[in-house]
């Protein structure tokens, strides 16, 4: 059917009238042609290492799986266990807290930075590069450096506090401070990322709207409130969604800085999945947790799409 759609367009563009027996009709959509082999490597890999594993993971979550050993069906036992498992609820709570705090600060501060730095002056460009730089650095490097920076004995932060006469703070070894500290480092790392995404959105707001509003006598803050924010709403949604999905899967930073401790106070869902699957070898149970995480991600994405009323933006 697309062929018939394409014929008039093609004919109009080239100016040559095409009959039904023309060149386009001689190249119909075919089921099979050798060039389709071009797709084989990608589809083989996606099939074997993404699509098939999703199905497997779903099946595992109803099984008691031992790697290289026997597996047995346990029905919904894994999910029942999970429902009663205080470790799971702890990890879920921490993951949600981590996500809400990170995403809220990142979107708000990232938006302010994008507003301040949207001009193309040299100074703005340099500052933008500096803020963006942590985005491309591995979480292992960042986790390691911040862990040392916050070390009460050798860290620069402790050193500064000492100069100011403030007693040393054990940022990562206190159960009440460890989580906020890791969240802070996560925000520090991703601020430039949020800023870049939002800057792309700001560029898409038509200049005429600002000029029309200015002629109507709008002040700067009114411009932000009535022109900029509605104009970047799709980007705000996209940024919130991407950051939420990424933060729900936070692992590296926690693994490097605290490994879930002290006393599980920073134990996120992926940390728990990793520990259950690869340290405790409860593979089926870990699959059940990962499926719950999957469902949470899908539900939160759907809620955010609805909350931002993405569809009636344009």
């Amino acid at each position, binding site marked *: 059917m697309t*062929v018939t759609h394409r014929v008039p367009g093609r004919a109009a563009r080239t100016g040559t009238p095409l009959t039904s027996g023309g060149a386009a009709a001689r190249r119909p959509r075919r*089921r*099979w042609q050798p060039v389709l082999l071009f797709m084989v490597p990608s589809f083989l890999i996606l099939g074997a290492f993404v699509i098939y594993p999703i199905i497997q993971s779903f099946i595992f979550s109803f099984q008691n799986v031992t790697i290289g050993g026997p597996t047995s069906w346990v029905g919904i036992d894994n999910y029942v266990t999970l429902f009663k498992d205080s470790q799971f609820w702890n990890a879920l709570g921490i993951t949600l807290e981590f996500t809400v705090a990170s995403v809220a600060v990142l979107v708000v501060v990232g938006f302010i930075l994008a507003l301040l730095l949207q001009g193309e002056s040299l100074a703005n460009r340099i500052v933008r590069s500096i803020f963006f730089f942590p985005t491309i650095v591995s979480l292992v490097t960042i986790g390691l450096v911040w862990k040392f920076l916050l070390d009460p004995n050798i860290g620069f932060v402790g050193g500064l506090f000492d100069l100011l006469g403030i007693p040393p703070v054990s940022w990562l070894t206190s159960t009440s401070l460890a989580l906020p500290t890791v969240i802070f480092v996560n925000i520090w790392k991703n601020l430039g990322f949020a800023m870049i995404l939002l800057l792309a959105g700001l560029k898409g707001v038509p200049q005429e709207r600002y000029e029309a509003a200015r002629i109507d006598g709008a002040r700067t803050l009114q411009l932000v409130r009535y022109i900029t924010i509605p104009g970047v709403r799709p980007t705000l949604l996209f940024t919130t969604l991407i950051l939420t999905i990424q933060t729900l899967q936070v692992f590296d930073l926690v693994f490097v800085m605290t490994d879930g401790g002290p006393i599980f106070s920073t134990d996120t869902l*992926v940390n728990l999945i990793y520990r259950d699957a690869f340290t405790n070898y409860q593979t089926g149970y870990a699959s059940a947790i990962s499926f719950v995480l*999957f469902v949470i991600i899908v539900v939160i994405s759907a809620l955010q799409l609805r909350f931002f009323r993405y569809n009636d933006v344009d």
Partner: protein
Amino acid sequence: MSTESLRTAPRRPLAPARRGFAALRSSSKWIFLGIGVLAALIPFVWMISGSFRSEADLFKNPASLFPTSVTLHGYIGVWQQLPFLRLLANSFIFAGVTTVATLLFDSMCAYVLSRVPFRGRSIAFWLVIATLMVPFQVTLIPVFIELFHLGWLNTYQGLIIPRATSAFGIFLFRQFFISIPPELDEAARIDGASHWRIYWQVILPLSRPAIATVAILNFMNLWNDLLWPLVVTTSPDMLTLPAGLTLFGGQHITDHAILLAGATISLLPIAIGFFLAQKYFVAGVATTGLK
């Protein structure tokens, strides 16, 4: 741009009070940004300087950003106490080979999805897009078991092959290929060129920006990745830099300068790439939301 120019392009001269207000606002903007810039830079300055400092210096002067005397023991220790050459080589092989394979496979797949009409094409494309929505952790355990049965744990093929295509790459290439006028490859086809020649000699040479974006994004993600190499490799011989630094840092090595030296070296390729090709980093991250 917009609010900035609005503020500085008044229709009539500003009253002194408003001019003072504007100056105050501009300077408070730069004070705010200045603090931000310091906060963004100090950890890296401290990391690099720390890699040249002795343990004694670190303990004695924690408030100092710079070494009192420069020592190279961190950089020497990294080679002596870690299988550092092996970690570095593994990281380069893993990130490099995987990126090259991804570029080839993704662009080939995208060529068909953008250029060859066939029944089921839109289903194939949406299947690719759908895999983007699946969190990596959901597939991690079954993939680990697959690799176990294949005997691919602790091997390069185990590290590389499952990651050798990326749905984001296919998507990005497809969008780019669609923007290349079809008249170009139709002319080539009339001259008798095969699909392979059109792909290799017409489409790819025109797609340098897309290639650069996908290459940089992929290399960066693979180079920085921790969870995947941590799961697929257990023997110290097969670890990549991030996995090695994490595992050895936790257990064997207590000297801070050594770990900071390792972190500095592992940052170097990405930092150099960033200074040379910043616009591709920014374009890649901004269009895909990946980092």
